[in-house]
């Protein structure tokens, strides 16, 4: 699993590739919270996320709550099929702001 952070005009696009599980979710959590801690809005690019479990979902929920507390934008983008099924199972597809692709998310301001 890799976590890649890119600054795109003041928004951090955090790309998560591979499988997010109990082993790798701490990296996801750290990257999201570090960006938000700097006051930077976040778009999580999940186009190459092959798998996510409850620990990965917990990292996203923590990011969502942290962003809300700071008044920052936090969105998911290009969520691939398998992770989307997991988000739906947790009914989080109705909670998170989810865009079909990263460009849409950036145009909307994260």
């Amino acid at each position, binding site marked *: 699993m890799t976590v890649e952070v890119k600054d795109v005009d003041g928004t951090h696009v955090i790309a998560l590739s591979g499988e997010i599980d109990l082993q790798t979710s701490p990296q996801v959590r750290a990257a999201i919270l570090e960006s938000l801690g700097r006051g930077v809005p976040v778009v999580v690019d999940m186009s190459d996320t092959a798998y996510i*479990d409850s620990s990965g*979902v917990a990292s996203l929920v923590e990011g969502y709550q942290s962003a809300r507390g700071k008044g920052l934008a936090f969105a998911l983008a290009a969520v691939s099929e398998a992770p989307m099924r*997991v988000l739906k199972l947790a009914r989080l597809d109705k909670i998170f702001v989810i865009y079909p692709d990263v460009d849409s998310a950036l145009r909307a301001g994260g």
Partner: protein
Amino acid sequence: MAEPTPPRAADQPQEGGRLLRVAAHPSSLRAIRAHLRAEAEAMGASAEWIADLVLAVDEACQNIIRHGYRCADPDAPPREDCVIVVETAVLPAGPAPAAGQALVVRLTDFAAPVDAAKIRARDLDDLRPGGLGVHFIRSLTDDCAWVPPPPGAGNVLRLVKRLTAAPGAGEGEET
């Protein structure tokens, strides 16, 4: 003092299945998922069915690692005395209409016995990080229950996920 060695009784297939014995450590989850995918693919299950099975078992193993052994730190080395035995077995299709083939997964650990009465899924409307594992396990399996462990083992969680039999057919078809 040497750590106790789990007894061989837990390493014997209980339902005629295949065994995978791994350290109870976050780094083992990838191997567990690969093992389950291979077993389910051999049954001819769909990608969705396999994904659901893999997530349910991953979550159950996570619970053992986190709450049973308290070995969830990915940076800590695996402990020799913290082991999960994953047994998979295919149950043949039964009489129609709803009894297609099933995959049975038995997870044996050597941690303290679980108090099943205290295990519950959280309310999904209570938005907070964590607490989704039990919901995933129960939603994605047809049956999950602790069964009596063999001598020396702590717990055995038995998960069952069925393929639905096609109407009038003896062969299973995944849902």
